[in-house]
């Protein structure tokens, strides 16, 4: 009986989905909104990368919400793991000298790549989230490779707060000039240059710092609770 009902429901939903989408030709570009974005985004926002212009400019408020969600997740994890210690007998092997040397050599290059990705977020693929994550990966390599390494949590939280404040202030500046929240009030410049697209690079650099600091803090907290140290 249950299976019969499930089959009937599936058929019902399938039939209506089919009738809804039968008229849409597969793989053809029928979306008016997408076309409009692709055509008007460069003169309107000054950002060559359309994805960035949508994420930071048209949907800037959404991005602020996403950053807040990430912050809350990191805070919650820290609250759960606070005071937790790993077992002292939980021994693990010393990192080999290859890993230590490799970590020291790779860390600056990874940070440079991450910084490049979020500074050029309005020109090339990627942006604050991707760049920040790459920097956190670099910190992970340091944690794995150097046994005595500990992230400076005070510095991380200061960096994160400053980045968050920068994002909100950039939004409020739009209100101060009598326009909408997160409105692009700076001059757009020539599309394709690093100093262009108004507040987009500022916001993406802030997002990059914030995401990098948060994820690095999360990784360090997690690693130190499994390591058997405080």
């Amino acid at each position, binding site marked *: 009986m249950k299976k019969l009902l499930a089959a009937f429901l599936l058929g019902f939903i399938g039939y209506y989905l089919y009738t809804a989408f039968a008229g849409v030709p597969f793989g053809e570009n029928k979306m008016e909104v997408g076309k409009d974005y692709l055509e008007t985004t460069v003169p309107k926002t000054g950002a060559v990368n359309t994805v960035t212009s949508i994420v930071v400019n048209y949907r800037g408020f959404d991005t602020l919400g996403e950053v807040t969600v990430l912050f809350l997740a990191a805070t919650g994890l820290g609250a759960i793991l606070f005071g937790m210690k790993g077992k002292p007998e939980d021994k693990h092997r010393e990192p080999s000298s290859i890993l230590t040397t490799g970590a020291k050599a790779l860390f600056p290059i990874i940070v440079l790549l991450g910084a490049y990705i979020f500074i050029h977020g309005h020109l090339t*693929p990627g942006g604050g989230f*991707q760049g920040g994550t790459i920097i956190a990966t670099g910190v992970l390599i340091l944690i794995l490779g150097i046994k005595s390494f500990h992230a400076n949590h005070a510095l991380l939280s200061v960096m994160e707060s400053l980045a968050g404040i920068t994002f909100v202030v950039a939004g409020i500046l739009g209100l101060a000039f009598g326009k909408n929240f997160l409105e692009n009030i700076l001059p757009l410049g020539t599309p394709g240059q690093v100093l262009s697209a108004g507040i987009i690079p500022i916001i993406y650099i802030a997002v990059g710092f914030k995401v990098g600091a948060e*994820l690095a803090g999360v990784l360090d907290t997690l690693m130190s609770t499994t390591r058997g140290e405080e």
Partner: protein
Amino acid sequence: MILLQWTLTPELLYQAGTGILLFLLVVAAIFSVVQKDLLMAIVGTSLVSLILSVLFLLLHAPDVALTEAAIGVALTTAIFLIALRKTGRYEE
């Protein structure tokens, strides 16, 4: 004779590559679900992310590919591995 007329155009290569990657994606996903050894399962999910990232690049979505490579391949795997060390390696 039909096989001889079959020319190797870039478009065909692109489609064949996408098809092979999609097949491998499904295989890796099933592997990571079926696997009892959780370490191998984590390697499987990481492989899924890696293939997905290449697929996103082939489908002209470099932004998503970067995100998938950084978060799916590197960070999620690391967090899963840390969690695995706290718990047991084998599924009961």
